[in-house]
């Protein structure tokens, strides 16, 4: 028996064999491990999508550049868009939601743990299929051929005649499959938030992150599904000889645009609402004040969700609609600015008079406030139909939505990484590297996307392969490209910080930020069962009540 005991001790000393670790991660149904898998998966694709962006920017650095061929350029912007939306932004946000929601509402896991694993692996399969097209896009003929139809895949480009081979099929099926994964996760999050809250956690006491995730999941149910339906139609067209988007048989290319943007616009809000959630958790903690206007924040979010369902056609002003449709979609699009403005003022109200701590997460949040405001203002400009006729499909639009996605979503995500990394790993991220990352990224971001508005105003169309010298675009494009490199370097600093701090970072302890929500009451990283005993809460800030029994929030709420 002594040899058995020895063997057991050896295993404990050396850790478990890597096969066992791998098996554990592949078969896990634990919401924390799945959350980490989502996040790592998204970070991998962030780097891949970033490389594609850099290739696009090198090509556009100088007029008459031939760094890549026009065909490769088309593939790059298609893959960049598809990757960043479906395989970076969606999974990383679902990853954080997966990890944080059960911890924040005092639950031990998600409502349907196996569905959770199934949804993640569907999403993972989607990303794999999309990138397999580089190898298998032409089937067994050998040479690869990634999708090159743009991330909207406007009809008739994805039809058999214009898109031979299988690259468009890989695109369609990748997006369809990852869409099913998103719907599964959304169902799971809704059931978790509504059915697994700990005693005392009424809807009016839920952390805003849980509230906003609930709204976002509801939007996924009604916004991702139209895309799934449209992709099924596309497959019917391509494989069964259907005519949904076949103009020669009376089908309509415009219908695809409507179906795509009925998904496409709410999708932007599906991505930004979790970022509002990060803001609403991080800003109060580093301002040392409770969130300003909690009920209004919830109401504004629900309001954004409703209004965003009826704004889609502002993406297709340029195809020509009647004046009633133009007016309707212009007005609804501008209307979104109202609840969004309320949110910005509420964050400012939270910071107002607070003892603000300028830690890295807070720096990213403050940058978010400025940049998201500017992104919203150019958005209101583009919501005006006549302005959009002039600048739609130009680099002005590219600059606008990158301001939202990078300046808004990515900055909030970085804040979330710096804020919750200690909880997830038990180690603090380096503040020094964090500050370098922040300032480099701010510099690169503004060089790229501030300047990018100008060639757009001067008439540079989006998705253009190359351009003539002497149109006033040359210097601008050079600056934009240099900014892209700086952002790339900043992301490398960030990745280095993630890796180095995992081993070398300071130990975090349970509650490094002196925060107030339930996830900080358990150890870092949390145990597999989350809570040894299910907590009970009496206010929106249960840990404040615990730390200040003489003056608990529950007295005022």
């Amino acid at each position, binding site marked *: 028996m002594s040899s058995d005991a020895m063997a057991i001790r050896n295993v404990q000393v050396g850790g478990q064999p890597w096969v066992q670790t791998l098996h554990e991660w592949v078969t896990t149904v634990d919401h924390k491990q799945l959350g980490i898998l989502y996040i790592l998966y998204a970070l991998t694709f962030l780097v891949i999508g970033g490389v594609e962006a850099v290739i696009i920017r090198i090509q556009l650095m100088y007029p008459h550049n031939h760094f890549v061929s026009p065909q490769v350029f088309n593939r790059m912007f298609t893959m960049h868009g598809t990757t960043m939306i479906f395989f970076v932004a969606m999974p990383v946000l679902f990853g954080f939601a997966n990890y944080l929601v059960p911890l924040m509402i005092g639950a031990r896991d998600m*409502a*349907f743990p196996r569905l959770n694993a199934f949804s993640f692996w569907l999403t993972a399969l989607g990303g794999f299929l999309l990138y397999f097209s580089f190898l298998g896009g032409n089937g067994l003929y050998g040479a690869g051929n990634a999708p090159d139809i743009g991330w909207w895949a406007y009809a008739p480009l994805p039809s058999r005649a214009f898109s031979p081979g299988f690259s468009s099929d890989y695109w369609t099926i990748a997006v369809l499959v990852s869409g099913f994964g998103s*719907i599964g996760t*959304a*169902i799971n999050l*809704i*059931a*978790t938030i*509504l*059915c*697994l809250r700990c*005693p*005392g956690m009424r809807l009016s006491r839920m952390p805003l992150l849980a509230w906003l995730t609930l709204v976002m*999941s*509801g939007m996924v*149910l*009604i*916004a991702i*599904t*139209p895309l*799934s*339906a*449209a992709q*099924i*139609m596309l497959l*019917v*067209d391509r494989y*069964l*000889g*259907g*005519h*949904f988007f076949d103009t020669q*048989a*009376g*089908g*309509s290319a415009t219908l695809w645009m409507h*179906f795509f943007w009925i998904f496409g616009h709410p999708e932007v809000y599906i991505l930004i609402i979790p970022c509002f959630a990060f803001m609403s958790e991080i800003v109060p903690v580093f301002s040392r004040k409770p969130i300003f206007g909690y009920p209004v924040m919830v109401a504004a979010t629900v309001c954004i969700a409703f209004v965003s369902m009826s704004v889609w056609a502002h993406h297709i002003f340029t195809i020509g609609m009647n004046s009633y449709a133009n007016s309707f979609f212009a007005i609804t699009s501008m209307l979104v600015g109202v609840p969004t403005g309320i949110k910005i003022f509420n964050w400012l109200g939270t910071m107002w008079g607070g003892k603000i701590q300028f830690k890295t997460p807070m720096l990213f949040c403050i940058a978010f406030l400025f940049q998201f405001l500017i992104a919203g203002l150019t958005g209101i400009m583009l919501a005006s139909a006549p302005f959009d006729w002039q600048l739609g499909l130009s680099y002005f639009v590219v600059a606008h939505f990158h301001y939202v996605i990078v300046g808004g979503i990515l900055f909030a995500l970085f804040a979330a990484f710096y804020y919750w990394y200690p909880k997830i790993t038990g180690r603090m991220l380096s503040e020094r590297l964090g500050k370098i990352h922040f300032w480099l990224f701010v510099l690169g971001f503004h060089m790229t996307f501030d300047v990018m508005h100008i060639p757009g105003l001067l008439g540079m169309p989006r998705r253009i392969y190359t351009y003539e010298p002497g149109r006033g675009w040359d210097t601008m494009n050079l600056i934009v490209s240099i900014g892209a490199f700086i952002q790339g370097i900043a992301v490398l600093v960030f990745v280095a910080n993630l890796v180095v701090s995992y081993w070398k970072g*300071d*130990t*975090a*302890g*349970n*509650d*490094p930020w*002196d925060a107030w929500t*339930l996830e*900080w*009451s*358990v*150890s870092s990283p949390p145990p597999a069962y989350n*809570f040894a*005993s299910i*907590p*009970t*809460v009496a206010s929106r800030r*249960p*840990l404040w*009540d*615990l*730390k200040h029994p003489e003056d608990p929030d529950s007295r005022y709420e």
Partner: protein
Amino acid sequence: MSATNAITTPALDTPEAWSLPYRGTVGMAALIIAESAIFTIFVVAYLFYLGKSLTGPIPRDVLETPIFYTICLLSSSLTIHFAGKFLALDRRGGFLGLWMLTIVLGALFLYGTGHEWHRLIYEHGLTISTNLFGTTYYSLVGLHAFHVTAGLVMLCIVLTFGLAGRLGRDQCARVGVLSLYWHFVDSVWVVVFTVVYIVRR
């Protein structure tokens, strides 16, 4: 306050009364919302392309209203509802009888769809690639028939458990979730029936 491990899980001395909805029902309700959005897009496509086919056949000439099969499907909602009631009372015989009746009614409906498709294909030469009507009609009705098929498979699984004597009152909530899905499939048919057979042009 710096890094601290002194924080414990908060607990109240006098916890309030606490009850939350059943996760199965909420999950199914969420799935139904998602499915409704998918069906909405197919219905919109059907209505948008109604009368826009460049060649025949057109709905007015070839469609026959499937009254009998519609009655079959809609009444299966009643049988599954009362089957659930019997299960709640722990009356196995009544439950199994009505459950089997539900399956028979659903299968009859599927037979009706198959029969109609056979007639359309062999008598009228209408396939999914014939014209816009064919594309939208087969997609919409086919999507619904697919959901009926999936429902029937799940109903049969429950039947197997029931025949093996594994179902009792404890499973009432789970069976209720499945019957919620079945009601959804039936109510989608009301919409499909309306746009395909009543609004036919």
